[in-house]
């Protein structure tokens, strides 16, 4: 197995009294695409949001157990540093509506009070937009509001916003579920490109998408991690019955 970047040890997550995730143990390899699958409500989003500690924002929500990013305990890390290292792209595109495309891309810096020179900004914006394969489409309209873009473009803008922070890991929560097939395909291609430089954890309901794009797949069911394996192995030869039922479409 490749170097592991994220180690999850005995993670439990709660909403109030309700235990949503129980005893998740997982090692995530670097520079790979990891797909999280499972029926609705099984805790994929909760797991993802535990990794960048957005989960604990909900009143009454908490976690137990440990998560290490490069051997460093994320619950002891500075939140700002952690979230710069672990970016997130949401289900629905959510560019900041008061900001232009340009401002959106570097918003992680401006909002955190990190000052950049003009040339640094321009370089960062172009670089991030190129990586998100949006540059060609928007280079002449950088100072228009991000919300004027199409849904798929907005989603790529959000990806660029994450990329600009130069994270180690990017979390995607069903990034294509609100997009049309063409935009989805673009994002999928993009993910394959990004894997050279980033580790990608993606929640998806789309089995084909998981099979096409990911290197590893984790299957969650009722708050437990049922199976984690190379995607090809998991799909062609699932070790657990629930996994087999799920990928053969018998439930979910």
């Amino acid at each position, binding site marked *: 197995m490749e170097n592991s970047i994220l180690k999850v040890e005995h993670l439990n997550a709660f909403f109030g009294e309700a235990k949503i995730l129980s005893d998740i143990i997982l090692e995530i390899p670097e520079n790979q695409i990891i797909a999280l699958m499972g029926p609705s409500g099984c805790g994929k989003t909760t797991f993802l949001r535990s990794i960048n500690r957005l989960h604990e924002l909900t009143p009454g929500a908490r976690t137990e157990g440990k998560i290490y990013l490069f051997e460093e305990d994320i619950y002891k890390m500075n939140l*700002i540093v952690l979230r710069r290292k672990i970016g997130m792209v949401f289900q629905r595109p*959510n560019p900041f509506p008061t900001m232009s495309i340009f401002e959106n891309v570097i918003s992680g810096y401006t*909002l955190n009070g990190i000052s950049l020179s003009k040339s640094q900004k321009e370089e960062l914006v172009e670089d991030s937009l190129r990586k998100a394969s949006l540059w060609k489409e928007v280079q002449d309209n950088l100072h228009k509001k991000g919300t004027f873009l199409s849904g798929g473009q907005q989603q790529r803008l959000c990806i660029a916003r994450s990329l600009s922070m130069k994270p180690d890991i990017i979390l995607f929560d069903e990034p294509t579920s609100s997009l049309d097939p063409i935009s989805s395909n673009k994002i999928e291609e993009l993910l394959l490109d990004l894997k050279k430089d980033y580790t990608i954890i993606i929640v998806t309901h789309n089995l084909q998408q998981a099979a096409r794009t990911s290197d590893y797949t984790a299957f969650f069911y009722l708050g437990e991690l049922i199976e984690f394996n190379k995607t090809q192995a998991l799909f062609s030869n699932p070790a657990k019955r629930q996994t087999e039922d799920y990928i053969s479409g018998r439930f979910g």
Partner: protein
Amino acid sequence: MDKAIKLRFYKDRIFKSGIILLTVLSTLPLLLILFYIVKQGITSINWDFFINLPKPVGEKGGGIINALIGSGIIVFCASLMAIPFGALAGLYLSEYNRDKLAYWVGLCVDVLQGIPSIVLGIIIYLWVVKPTGHFSALSGSIALAIMMLPPIIKSTEETLKLIPVTIKEASLALGVPYYKTILRIILPMGLNGILSGSILSISRVAGETAPLLFTAFGNPFINTNILKPMSSLPLLIYNYAGSAYEDWHKLAWGASFVLIMSILFLNLVTKILERRWRIQF
């Protein structure tokens, strides 16, 4: 055509015409009032009307400069007090709507909205005018500010509540601290709602007489000291319309016209703000 269907069709027609008729009937008084005020007031309006003091009884002409300046100052000071507090309270209510305190604050706001303005005037008289020993524009502003709070709080709360959580989360996920997320993302997005709520509340209190009777009191001269009694458009209308002199009635109609037009203007500005500044998300 089937008889039953025909009957239904006619019922629909009658229902629709009924609604339209009632709507027209209910707006008719408003239009008549507006028309009457314009008709009565417009003859008083000329340049002198805006730059002169009211004339003593028996003299023709005169203007309402004291009331114009007074209304401006009193409402401005009231806004200065009400808008920051109202916006912050609205922010609190939308951000922490699960808190117990928020529940009680919300309830208080609803009750506050129902307090008759004359009662507010009397309370400010007891709490501010009496202890300081004299009527003042400031005490009037305080009374108006309290009246402005509920609509500002409500409109801020409603606007901010509409902002999708995911936009806040996008900011937090970038490592931006909570307070900065509020100041740099949430408030700017709500700005148009806060502003239009504020302007609307200004237009509502601009015509209030009752809270000013025992506070700002009125003043036949130009005064710009907020610690002294001050005139205002509704006070001037109240005093002059109630007098026995034709010339003063004319002045009151003119002032009513100016007041109505300003309120109309403010309402238009609000509508434009709401449309132009609509932030889409």
